[in-house]
Structure formats: C-alpha cells, structure tokens
C-alpha cells in the first residue's frame, strides 16, 4: 500500500507532526448550529507528548476526531507532516487512535486485535507475527495473547488497545481520554507507562483529557481549550506558573483572583499595587497591557501565613481550616471582602497553630503574581 511510502519524504524536512490552520467544525445548520471548534490553529511537534486539556464540550475530542479523520473540518486545513489530510478517510491516514471505550474487537483474540491493522495494510504474515510479538512484549501482555478481549481486565484491555494502535507504527498516536475508565492506582501506573511507551517508540502522542493532573504530569506541552478555542499552549510549568487567562488559571490548579492596579508595564513584567496598597512585581502574558486595573492570580501554595501583619503583602481574617492530608488549606477573608486561600504543607516539626477568627498577615513569594489577559 502506498499509505506509508509517501510520508517518508516529508518527514525529514518538517519538524511539525500536525499543523492545524484555522480549523473550524460546525455541527448542525442554521439556528441550531454549534461551533465545536472555532477557528483553531495549532502546531504539534514531532515526537512530543501533546495534550489537549479542557472541560467536556470544549472541542478537544472534536479536534482529535478531525485529526483521526472520523469527521471532516467545516473550514480550515489539517496537515500531517506537511501533507494536507483534511479530507482523507481515516483508513488512508497513518494515524491511529486509542479510544476512550477501547473499542476492542470482541470476536478476536488479543493477538488478533493487535494484528488487525497490519493485516489491513497488507503486511506479510511473518512480519505481522513478529510485530505482534514485539507489541505484546512492549505492553507486557505476552501471556494473554490468545485470550478473548472479554476475558481480560480493564487495565489489560487498555494495554491491548495501546498495542493495537501502536502496531502499525503510526506517525501520530491519538489518545481519547484513555485512562478515564481506570481506577486511581492503575491510572497512575498507566500514566508512567504511556510516557515510557512514547519515549521508546518515538511516536508523536496527542492526548485528550479533562484531568489537569494527568495533563501536567505527562505532557511536553499542553493546549488548554474552552468553547471550541485554544486559550493557551505551553509546557506544564508555563501553563501552571504563568496562565494567560482566567479560565486557564481556574481550570488548572487552585487560584486566588484579585484586582490590582498596574502602575508600570515593561516587556513581560509589570509593577502593580495590591488592593492592600503593597507594591509587587508581576509577570505579564503576551498581549498589550496598559496601566490601570487588571486581574491577577496568586496560587495558594505561593502564599504564606504569618502572625506579623506589618510588612506582609496583605492581611485577612481566618475563616476556615481544611485539612487535606499532605497540606492544610486556610480560607481567609480580605478586608475588601474577597476570599483568599493559602495552602501550606503539613510538617511534623513546625506545627502552625492558627484558629478561626485570627487576623493574619499573608506573605507572597517573589514572582508569584501573574497578570491575566481578559
């Protein structure tokens, strides 16, 4: 089959695996139409673990289905290593999918499932057998190869689904919330496993999830989506430490939002005045900013409580204490009425002993203030 041959040429020159240009997908017509994807442009690099993160209905699965070929874009083009694949049927794209439901073929054995894609590509029998063996080893399922897929556990089915999608050695592997059906422990194991598989195979992974923790631990880069748009693309650290928009900050991790007054703006940093009157340095996202009021975000773990109110950035009244194992969350109320959460790690040596109603000072770490675009 010519499916593979034509891709090899383009591989060398292009550093990107997937290029989406102004992609839109509109379902329905007229007044009932819904834009699942609204003019999205995205570039996914070769060999990277790229995550589409967002709440359900944000368009992340739609984007994945467009790359897989199950749907065609209403507007825009999708390039795979420089070749336009927007209108190709899924069986002509060197892209494979790990489905949320696994979608294993129940009438075939584990080995039969893994061999299916290779058989459809018309590979010779010895090569198929060889690849199937290698895949079984890769996902540690050799001992179950002649079982029916209904006779193995959910975690094992997950591995088979992975092996089946990896066997034809696709240019890009698409994963549609593949871990959502697993229990917590197994999910943790599979996160590490997936990362290992991606390193070993060198295949570009496009991973869809609504689980921010999953996205942070596994991804090279994350695209945060909402309402059919990509809000921000960046490494987990960039996304977490420097969210550009309120939605991104709110969706990933816990956040304290405050309104501050920008006093001077220069490049990617700004001077601002907190509501308490204290001056701080903050980082700015891309975009034009001018002096005046702006929304800022401070992560709860970047703030510290202190008994000394003088000299602290802010002060507030302690309203609630929530113990969550590793950490304790202190819910405070600032003088202007805003809620503010401080998180501190629980340590055996230094026991902090605050009680509800205490008036406490809040210290904020350097570089912890991020200005948001909105």
């Amino acid at each position, binding site marked *: 089959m010519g499916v593979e041959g034509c891709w090899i040429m383009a591989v060398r020159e292009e550093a990107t695996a997937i290029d989406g240009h102004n992609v839109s997908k509109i379902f329905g017509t007229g007044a009932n139409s819904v834009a699942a994807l609204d003019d999205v442009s995205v570039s996914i690099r070769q060999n990277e673990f790229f995550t589409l993160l967002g709440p359900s209905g944000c368009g992340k699965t739609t984007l994945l289905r467009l790359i897989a*070929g199950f749907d065609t874009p209403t507007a825009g083009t999708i390039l795979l290593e420089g070749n336009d694949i927007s209108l190709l*049927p899924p*069986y002509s794209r060197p892209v494979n999918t790990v*489905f949320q439901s696994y979608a*294993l073929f*129940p009438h075939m054995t584990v080995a039969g499932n893994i061999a*299916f894609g290779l058989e*459809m590509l018309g590979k010779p029998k010895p090569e198929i057998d060889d690849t199937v063996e290698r895949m079984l080893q890769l996902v540690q399922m050799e001992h179950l190869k002649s079982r029916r897929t209904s006779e193995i556990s959910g975690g094992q089915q997950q591995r088979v689904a992975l092996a089946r*999608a990896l066997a034809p050695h696709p240019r890009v592997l698409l994963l549609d919330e593949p871990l959502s059906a697993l229990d917590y422990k197994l999910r943790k194991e599979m996160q590490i496993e997936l990362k290992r598989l991606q390193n070993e195979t060198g295949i570009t992974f496009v991973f869809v999830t609504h689980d921010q923790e999953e996205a942070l631990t596994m991804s090279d880069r994350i695209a945060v989506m909402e309402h059919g748009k990509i809000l921000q693309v960046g490494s987990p650290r960039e996304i977490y430490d420097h969210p550009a928009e309120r939605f991104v900050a709110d969706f990933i991790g816990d956040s304290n939002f405050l309104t501050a007054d920008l006093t001077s703006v220069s490049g990617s940093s700004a001077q601002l005045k907190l509501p308490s009157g204290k001056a701080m340095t903050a980082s700015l996202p891309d975009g034009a900013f001018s002096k005046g009021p702006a929304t800022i975000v401070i992560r709860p773990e970047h703030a510290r409580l202190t008994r000394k109110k003088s000299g602290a950035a802010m002060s507030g009244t302690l309203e609630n204490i929530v113990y969550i194992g590793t950490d304790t969350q202190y819910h405070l109320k600032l003088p202007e009425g805003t809620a503010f959460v401080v998180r501190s790690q629980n340590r055996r040596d230094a026991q902090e002993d605050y009680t509800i109603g205490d008036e406490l000072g809040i210290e904020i770490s350097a570089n912890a203030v991020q200005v948001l675009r909105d």
Partner: protein
Amino acid sequence: MSAGSQIPADSAAPAGKAPGMQAEAARRADVRRNILLTTPALIVLFFAASGPLLIMLVYSFLRPGDYGGVQWTFATDGWASVFLQRDIFDDTLSVADAHLSIFWRSVKLSILTTFTALVLGFPTAYFIATRPVESRNLWLFLITIPFWTNLLIRTFAIMEVIRNQGLINNILTGLGLIDEPIQMLFTDFAIMLGMTYVYLPLMVLPIYASMEKFDFRLVEAGYDLYATRLRVLRRIILPLVKPGVVAGSILVFIPSLGAYVTPRVLGGGKNMMLGNLISLQFGQGRNWPLGAALSLTLLLIVMVALLYYVRSVGKAESHHG
C-alpha cells in the same frame, strides 16, 4: 411454614446440614418452581405439536381411504410414493419426477427467497439500528405494518401489481417501453417475489436485534486501523451480527419451504411447491398417507438443513477464535 422460610432457619444452625447440601436443596426448589411455571406451555406444545405429529406418523403407514381418510391396515405405499410412482397399467415402479421437481423447486425458491430477503433486509436493519434511539421504534413500527393486513389480501395485491394487465405492465406499455406484457404472474419469480415480501420482516427483526447490541464505535476502530468499508463489513460487522443473520435466515427459510398461500395464488396451478402438493393429497388427491409421508419428509429436510447450517456456522466461529 413454607419451604422458603425454612432455609434461613437451617443456615442459622451451623451444626446442621453442610452448606453444599443446603444450596442443593435451594436449587432443587428453584427447578421445581420453574417446571411449574413452564407446565402450561409444555402441555400446549405436547398436544399441539407432538400429538398431531404422532398422528401423521401413524397415518403415513396406513392405506388411503376411498373418500379420503385412512383404512387401518399397515402399508408402506405412502412413503414409497414420496419419491416413486406406480404405473397404472403395468404396476412397475419408476422415480416420481413430478414430486422431485416440486421438492427441487421448493428448496430452490426457499434458498433464493432467503438470500433475497437477506440482501434486502440487512441494509434495512443497519439503517434502523443507526437511527437515533427515539426514531428507531417508529421505523420498527413501519416494518410491522404489512402484518396488519391478511396474508391472502396482500398476496392478491401483489398479483394486481405484476399480472399482465397489472400496474407494472400497464406503466411499461404506457411508456412504450414494451409492446407485449411481460409474463410475471404464475412464474417461479412471482412466487419468490411474494415470499420475499411476506417474510422480509422476519429477516429484518432478528438482524436488527443483534445490530442494536452492536457497538458502532468498532466501525470507527476498523476504519482507524486501515480497513476499508467493505472490509469493516466483512471482518467486523458481519461476524458480530451473525447470530441475527442466522436466526433471520432460519425464520425465512422454514416457512418458505412449507409455503402454501403464496405459491397457490402467485404460482397458479402448475408451479406447485411442497405445501401445495401436501394439501393436494389431503384434498382432491384423497391420499392421506402420502400427504402425511410428504409432510414428514418436509420436516426431515428442514431438520437436516438446520443441523447443517448450525454446524457450519459453529465451525466457522471456532475457526475465527
């Protein structure tokens, strides 16, 4: 005290019976209850199916009465005349060509009907199964509409459509496409058309039932793994809806083989099928033993065909695994 309330009392005394025995007792009580529940149906089945069958078996070994009915003397003539005929002048036996050709026509038309119904019914079932859940019932309801009208009336309606001065021929003549009407009525084609029409729902419904359980996400998985449409159909859809296809085929094949009304009306007098031949023996033929023997032969054909079919399907299945 009822038997049911005694069981917990037993389990409260661990020194008593072994737990295995107790489970066994509960199981037996369960079986007893289930037998009671099925008894009415079993009685009906016994008297309505086994009873007449037994009478048929006895009649097939008797001598025909002069005005129908039977004489109570043992004879094997009934069975002999299923495939053989006695020359009325010199009493020599020869193969009954007429019967053989009727057997052959019945089997041939039934297979063709089953095949046609499958080809038409499969896409229909697929269509219904892929509709949104709310509208599926409407489509199923439409499938059952033909059942509302009497079979005889529907068959006459087909006759009206295909006869020489019927709808099709009139339209074709009116358009000037043909000069002479095409003879469709009273042919094997007419019989097959009629039977396909009558039995098509029996093909659609079981295929739909297994397709409804089919996970259509597997189709996407197939496409994703480089299978074209045809290969997805052959390698993924067909193997998984096979139980429905088998059930539908059996449900169409069996009544086709014994069909009476459709070949009678659409096949005219000369294109007889087994059902008509049997009915003839109990009517004008006044040969009840032969009729009984023919009926039992039909039963045997169906049984052999079914066994063969079920076994070949089973074999194909284990081959896949």
